[in-house]
């Protein structure tokens, strides 16, 4: 493990995973917000909104994430000139977040929609019977229960998001997979140890995360 006794190499490793962490955090936040809004659209009484939600899910769920992230860079940034911040790394970061969020939101939307379908129809009927509007029924009664029902699948989606964040490396961000490539290029004699350290880091963080979501799902389950 001589590779990791060099502080410069450790720095590459740490920086790589910090990017993954930031991409996951920002991506998960925006994917969750967007996914909930899309799920609301898909169950709304307004046909245009339903159509929009369905179109979003069908487009982004069925397109490779690599292509979406490429489009964010070459389409939004290079061609359309969308520059979010001046710093090139931060700009790539935000382009990556856009790609991850629009893609992951499609999966979040479908998970939440399946959660909505598990809520007995009587819950929404009772809400409407006391005079709540569609939006109130959705946000006060249906979504809080649906959200708790899909914590475990959402966990899987966010774990996938964390690993998918490595794809942002393809547009030049020095996240972990790029960091690994750089270390392997410079240390051809230590390919296996480098690989194991990077893969192990993901596993060590994500395995407890998965159990954490499972625990949370049990804890917050709505008793009927």
């Amino acid at each position, binding site marked *: 493990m001589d590779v990791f006794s060099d502080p410069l190499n450790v720095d590459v490793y740490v920086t790589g995973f910090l990017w993954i962490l930031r991409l996951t955090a920002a991506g998960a936040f925006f994917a969750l917000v967007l996914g909930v809004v899309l799920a609301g659209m898909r169950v709304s*009484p307004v046909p245009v909104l339903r159509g929009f939600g369905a179109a979003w899910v069908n487009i982004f769920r069925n397109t490779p994430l690599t292509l979406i992230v490429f489009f964010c860079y070459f389409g939004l940034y290079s061609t359309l000139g969308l520059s979010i911040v001046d710093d090139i790394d931060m700009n790539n970061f935000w382009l990556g977040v856009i790609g991850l969020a629009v893609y992951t939101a499609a999966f979040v939307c479908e998970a939440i929609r399946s959660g909505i379908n598990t809520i*007995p129809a*009587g*819950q929404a*009927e*009772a*809400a*409407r*019977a*006391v*005079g*709540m*509007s569609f939006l*109130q029924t959705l946000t*006060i*009664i249906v979504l*809080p*229960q649906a959200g*708790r029902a899909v914590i475990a699948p959402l966990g899987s989606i966010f774990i996938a998001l964390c690993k998918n964040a490595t794809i942002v490396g393809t547009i030049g961000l020095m996240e972990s997979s790029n960091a690994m490539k750089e270390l392997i290029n410079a240390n051809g004699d230590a390919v296996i140890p480098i690989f194991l350290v990077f893969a192990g880091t993901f596993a060590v963080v994500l395995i407890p995360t998965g159990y954490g979501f499972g625990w949370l799902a049990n804890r917050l389950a*709505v*008793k*009927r």
Partner: protein
Amino acid sequence: MADEALIVLDKVNKWFGPLHVLQDVSLSVDRGEVVVVIGPSGSGKSTLCRAINRLEPISSGTITFDGQPLAAEGRALARLRSEVGMVFQSFNLFAHKTILQNVMLGPVKVRKEKPAAVRERAMSLLERVGIASQAEKYPAQLSGGQQQRVAIARALAMQPKALLFDEPTSALDPEMVGEVLDVMTALAREGMTMVVVTHEMGFARHAANRVVFMADGQLVEEATPAEFFANPKTDRAKDFLSKILTH
């Protein structure tokens, strides 16, 4: 126009696909009146009850509540629903809210009343239906009879002009039916306008001002309970009563 009927249905029709579940139903319910709707299953009585606050949209005819025709989906309909309490067969308490929150939610979120004042009213309603000590529990922790009494308190918290009951005791264990009927009987005595779909003939006899008998989507007969149970006019009603009263 204080003596004008509170709920008026005029030639209401409803189809579920090819099924004609409500056929030219006309009915008016006066203020303070307790109308019990009885009839065999599938006769359309639940649909009738749900149509009054438009949980079930009707195909033709008009329904008027407090002088206002029922609006289509939207703000006006939501306001109407807030004035008509509904109690369901399966209680439908909000499963992720405590008993107290269930009762407070409508007044706070729909009427935008001050939570402190609503809390007081909610507690006194829970007191009245005998569940005040369970206020902080969740619905799943209560028995069916207790849940249904909470559902009644939730409907009352909106200070409704009328209450609709859709088979409120049909999902209950026999020993819990009485506690719910007691609450309903007390409400009837106090002059609440009620439309009650039920199979509880005892309740119909002693609490109803009028019994409405439905069969096959039609309103077949209406009379005072004494008259209906003693001398049913139609064969359909005689047949129905002979089946349920001989055991």
